């Protein structure tokens, strides 16, 4: 009896190993190996075609003297400061509306989710044309309404907020879905009890809805922070990092170093340093947003 059970266990183990093999292979090939290789690159100069050259910690020396890299980090943080609150507020408002008993609920959910599944490059080119200073639709409408044109993408103060607005429009559908899931998980009796106690809708929102959405909020904040840190397509296509480096994101800068200039070692150093910053920011956010109770 014991022997047959042991055989079954062994067979089960084999099947388990076999089934996890594809992911294990994928992990080592596309995550583990690149990660280890990138770490080795940190101490080298390499442009893909010539042999690697050991340069010790010189890439770090360069990093700490690289003004443009720190500008790109500052720009990324500026983007996050605009994008995350904007995204959370809009997504939450729309989720609250879509959580009501309204007509065409499914249609509106699909409508808001549509930009999430459309190619980022397509959306970026579309918005680039909408934002165009002289010929764009937005400025055309503003001129017709007698409002002064806005230099959306050609002014250092406007360019990053413009990109943040576009990114919010593209991604908000995803966060609406997450908030909807959270909202539908809040027990109805809490609202009924609050109503009996005389709580107004605004009080219900702040004392029931928002605390109950805490775990969703943590998820949304972390996901949108990580997504925001990987800001790349929008400045790459729309502005090339301009005007005057105001939309140069850290990812775009790392990409330029690696694939325009062939500084693979330096790009790897920047990548690791940037990953460390992301980790720190996410840990701090988690500490502040997450409630223990």
């Amino acid at each position: 009896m014991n022997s047959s059970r042991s055989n079954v266990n062994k067979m089960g183990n084999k099947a388990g190993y076999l089934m996890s093999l594809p992911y294990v292979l994928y992990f080592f090939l596309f995550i583990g190996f690149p990660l280890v290789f990138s770490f080795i690159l940190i101490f080298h100069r390499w442009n893909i075609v010539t042999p690697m050259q050991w340069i010790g910690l010189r890439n770090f020396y360069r990093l700490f003297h690289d003004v443009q890299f720190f500008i790109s980090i500052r720009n990324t943080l500026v983007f996050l400061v605009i994008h995350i609150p904007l995204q959370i507020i809009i997504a939450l408002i729309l989720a609250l509306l879509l959580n009501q008993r309204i007509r065409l609920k499914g249609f509106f959910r699909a409508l808001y989710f549509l930009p999430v599944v459309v190619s980022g490059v397509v959306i970026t080119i579309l918005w680039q044309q909408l934002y165009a200073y002289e010929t764009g639709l937005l400025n055309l409408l503003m001129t017709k309404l007698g409002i002064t044109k806005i230099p959306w993408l050609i002014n250092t103060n406007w360019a990053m907020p413009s990109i943040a607005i576009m990114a919010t429009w593209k991604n908000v559908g995803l966060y609406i879905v997450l908030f909807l899931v959270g909202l539908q998980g809040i027990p109805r009796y809490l609202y009924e009890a609050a109503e009996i106690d005389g709580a107004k809708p605004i009080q219900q929102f702040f004392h029931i809805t928002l605390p109950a959405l805490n775990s969703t909020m943590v998820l949304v904040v972390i996901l949108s922070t990580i997504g925001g840190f990987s800001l790349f397509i929008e400045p790459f296509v729309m502005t090339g990092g301009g005007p005057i480096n105001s939309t140069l994101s850290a990812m775009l800068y790392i990409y330029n170093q690696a694939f325009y200039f062939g500084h693979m070692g330096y790009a790897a150093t920047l990548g690791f340093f940037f990953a460390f910053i992301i980790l720190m920011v996410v840990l701090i956010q988690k500490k502040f947003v997450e409630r223990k109770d």
Partner: protein
Amino acid sequence: MIHNKAIITFLLLVGAFLVSCDKVRTAQTAGEQNAARLTYWCASNQDEINLAQELVDKWNRERPEIQVTLQPIPASQSSEEALLAAIAGKTTPDICSNMWPGAMDDFTSSGGLVRLDQFPDFMEYLQKRMPAELLESFRAPDRHYYQIPWKTNPIMVMYNKKMYREAGITQPIRTYSEYLSAAAKITRDVNGDARIDQWMGYRDIRPIWWQRLFDYYTFYIAASGGATLFDSTDIAFENAASVEVFRFFSAIYKNGYYPLTTFQGDAFLAGQVATQFTGPWNITHVENFKAPGFEYGIAPIPVPDDYTGLVYTYGDHKNISIFSTTKFPSAAWQFAKYLISAQADLRLLEICSQIPLRKNLTTDPLYREYFRDNPLMMQFAEQAPYTRGVDGSSVLKEIFDAISQEYEACAVYNKRIPEEAVANAAKRARVIVAWSHR
């Protein structure tokens, strides 16, 4: 059971058929068993693919001992990226005809290219084909040749004749003052909706390094009488010519003569801009897509008002190289000579509207008829001897990036004066060079 037997019989039949096909094919190609087999990568635009296909087909018919397979350069952001990836992956072709001289340093330092002057007739063949001074400019720092100078696309001004006429401009524009004065007349609201809808020109203002090849660098070569960014190994663009170019473009953007919009589509053909800086390849495009009655002309790049002498421009050269992974370097050299033969050069003109790097091009009887029928191409051909390429430097892209940053700050957004912007770009370029030597 019957079902299984039917499947097995079917598979056996298919197998037998495939084996017999292979035998037929083997018999057919027995004569080509000893043929050298070359893979040839050409540029991926349709005109060059058409040219390459025609040349390869003819070659394969006439030279059974060297058989060539054509493949356009794999899709990538640039040919250089695809070639670098191929070198890294050891999947390079035997021969490629889209080599940008600015990327040669990467290719040669990796040992990826065959030294061409090892072939006994290389110098003689090339010296017959092109001016010695121009040939010399393609020599690598180690004094050897790794590229066969093939073609050039001199950047010149293409202008809309109707828009010029309407603005009262009767003579081709030669100087910065003339250009700015014409721009003041041409840039205007045409349909009366209180919005400017016609400009003197358009350039992509994004700080992308290679965009500067077609504005700052082209104008710098013209203003400096043919100088490039380096003088031997030193940075040499911190001079009055650079400052003049920055000041010129600064005046253009300050006065709104170029829009700050990023256009999708061809603003020149759409009649939104009067001028563009372009090479002869664009003639085919304009001819194919122009509206009926669309008239255009070609003129040299404008120069500072006090400039005297010949007007040089950026040549945008593309050359041919043989990769060191080839098993048949001599056969590849034979094929390369065929690609730059007089007859192949004629087809390059006819199919691609690009200028072969050939001396006496405009007087050679072989090309006389072509240039008689294509007078605009004649202007590009006459400009061709007065072109400059780019310096062969591994940090060239970064230096152009440094220039691009300052160009944007000074010319496009008027945040810096030209002298300061040029000095900043040169300072940054020196740091880049110093870093690369550490």
